């Protein structure tokens, strides 16, 4: 595990000690090399996890998330280069340090064995993200957004701390590898009900669950591009990952405790998809689309069947790449027009045709077109929820239709039609932007050739 942590830590002296002209080159180069080494985690066994030490382990659930985390850092650096070009050098280096710190905490979160260590790192990821949103966001609303983000997550996770300490006292250990074998069925009582809620609420807020999702549109919209990318691609998945781990301890009361949350998610995914159809702000549309996709993941995790877990893991990875790409595309618009309003920069296909190709691919994967991994994830979830209860297929089907509607609406509004006269002299796409989009899309397309690595521990 140190082979990931130490290079990531050393990226910090790399940024601070590089020559002024070389900071972006050095950090991008070395973070790409670190992402190459992350593929070594794929040496997974069929019946056990890859246990590095007493503190770190990685199994088939955390491996794809780790690879995604380490892949995203160079992409975040490339995406931020333009809007930071005006800042002074110390601020640029500080921004890069925040990204690296976030990466470090995320690596340690996904590989933590001790659940308290996981909790500490889970909370620690809030700090660099808050700094990135509130310091480098573009509008005054960013302060409110940071507040919502911080306090929603904190309020949800403080009960988790209490619950974890209680489990440590009763079970004797919070080491996840041991807990797997020591776990006893949890009898039904009022205190266990609250224990279940305490364990799960942190992750529900993070996912986010439909009723607790207010922080997400604010935070995603106000964050700078790197912040939006990491929020959408990884930080939401922390909730899914945590839920998958903690449900191990919470059986069998999950069978009935999960009902309100399944209902909220099933209804919420349709509501948020419908809200997407009414959005004028491009980033807000993508943020609500994230809520909708994550609601599918919540349903999948709560019904706890092998196929639904496979679908949840696949959907998390697929959504991470797709959503991050959509935010990068929205940012490429924003850097030219300085507005997030969709109709302000429309008809872009005639002006920027290659970027229109990326918009098309991103929208198609967002609406889960076969044979992308988005479809694999959604299909597994739809099938498993159908076997759990036949009626859910109506809601799932409706959600897929509305998802297709708003993805195509976003595509058509931004790309098709006559372009407005005031944007006919926007700059052509940079190589950097095209490289960024292809670095998002190519792993997504390659994974559809070999999806077994993202199907999680129940494959």
């Amino acid at each position: 595990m140190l082979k990931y942590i130490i290079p990531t830590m050393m990226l910090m002296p790399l940024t601070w000690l590089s020559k002024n002209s070389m900071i972006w080159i050095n950090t991008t180069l070395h973070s790409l090399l670190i992402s190459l080494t992350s593929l070594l985690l794929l040496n997974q066994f069929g019946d056990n996890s890859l246990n590095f030490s007493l503190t770190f382990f990685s199994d088939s659930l955390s491996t794809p998330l780790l690879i995604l985390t380490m892949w995203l850092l160079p992409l975040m650096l490339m995406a931020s280069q333009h809007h930071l070009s005006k800042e002074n050098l110390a601020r640029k280096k500080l921004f890069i340090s925040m990204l690296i710190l976030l990466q470090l905490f995320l690596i340690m979160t996904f590989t933590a064995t001790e659940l308290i260590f996981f909790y500490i790192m889970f909370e620690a990821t809030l700090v660099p993200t808050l700094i990135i949103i509130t310091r480098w966001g573009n509008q005054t609303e960013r302060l409110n957004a940071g507040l919502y983000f911080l306090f929603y997550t904190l309020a949800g996770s403080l009960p988790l701390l209490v619950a974890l300490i209680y489990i440590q006292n009763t079970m004797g250990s919070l080491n996840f590898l041991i807990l797997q074998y020591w776990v006893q069925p949890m009898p039904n009582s009022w205190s266990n009900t609250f224990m279940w809620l305490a364990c799960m609420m942190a992750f529900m807020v993070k996912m986010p669950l439909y009723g607790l999702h207010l922080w997400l549109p604010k935070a995603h919209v106000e964050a700078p591009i790197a912040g939006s990318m990491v929020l959408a691609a990884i930080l939401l998945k922390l909730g899914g990952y945590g839920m998958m781990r903690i449900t191990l301890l919470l059986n069998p009361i999950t069978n009935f405790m999960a009902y309100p949350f399944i209902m909220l998610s099933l209804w919420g995914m349709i509501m948020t998809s419908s809200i997407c159809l009414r959005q004028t702000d491009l980033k807000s549309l993508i943020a609500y689309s994230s809520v909708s996709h994550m609601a599918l993941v919540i349903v999948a995790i709560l019904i706890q069947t092998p196929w639904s877990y496979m679908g949840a893991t696949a959907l998390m990875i697929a959504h991470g790449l797709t959503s991050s790409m959509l935010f990068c595309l929205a940012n490429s618009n924003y850097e030219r027009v300085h507005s997030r309003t969709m109709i302000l920069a429309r008809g872009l296909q005639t002006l920027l045709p290659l970027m229109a190709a990326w918009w098309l691919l991103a929208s198609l994967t967002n609406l889960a077109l076969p044979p992308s991994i988005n479809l694999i994830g959604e299909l597994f979830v739809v099938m498993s929820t159908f076997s759990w209860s036949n009626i859910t297929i109506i809601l799932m089907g409706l959600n897929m239709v509305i998802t297709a509607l708003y993805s195509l609406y976003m595509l058509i509004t931004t790309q098709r039609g006559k372009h407005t006269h005031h944007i006919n002299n926007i700059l052509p796409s940079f190589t950097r932007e095209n490289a960024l989009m292809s670095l998002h899309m190519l792993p997504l397309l390659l994974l559809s050739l070999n999806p077994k690595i993202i199907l999680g521990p129940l494959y």
Partner: protein
Amino acid sequence: MLGLCGRRLLAVAATRGLPAASVRWESSSSRAVIAPSTLAGKRPSEPTLRWQEDPEPEDENLYEKNPDSHGYDKDPAVDVWNMRVVFFFGFSIVLVLGSTFVAYLPDYRMQEWARREAERLVKYREAHGLPLMESNCFDPSKIQLPEDED
């Protein structure tokens, strides 16, 4: 498309008095023509075409000073190196070598072994007349239960 970009860049160059095309070029596939501008060298008193309607004071056009900009940096040398680093390390090393690594992973999660082992066991059990699978996971005679406490 090329003509469109070329004409736009030429217009930008012309209003800023930069040396524009010196030979006449006609596209064979479209009707695009790039001709030496009669305004070359002569700076107009006031630019008739601003490249933005409401320019942000701090907005910078990277293509202005460096028409071959890749979008990374103002300095053309750093820009080219950054582009090379991203493409070489991002695509040629990580995507290519990484996909090769993933494609040739040996028996991920022992699926192929499991299939072979299952076929071997079925063949053995059928040959020996044993049931293919027993409902008991462990041998019941070996399980020691605690004494009944009443």
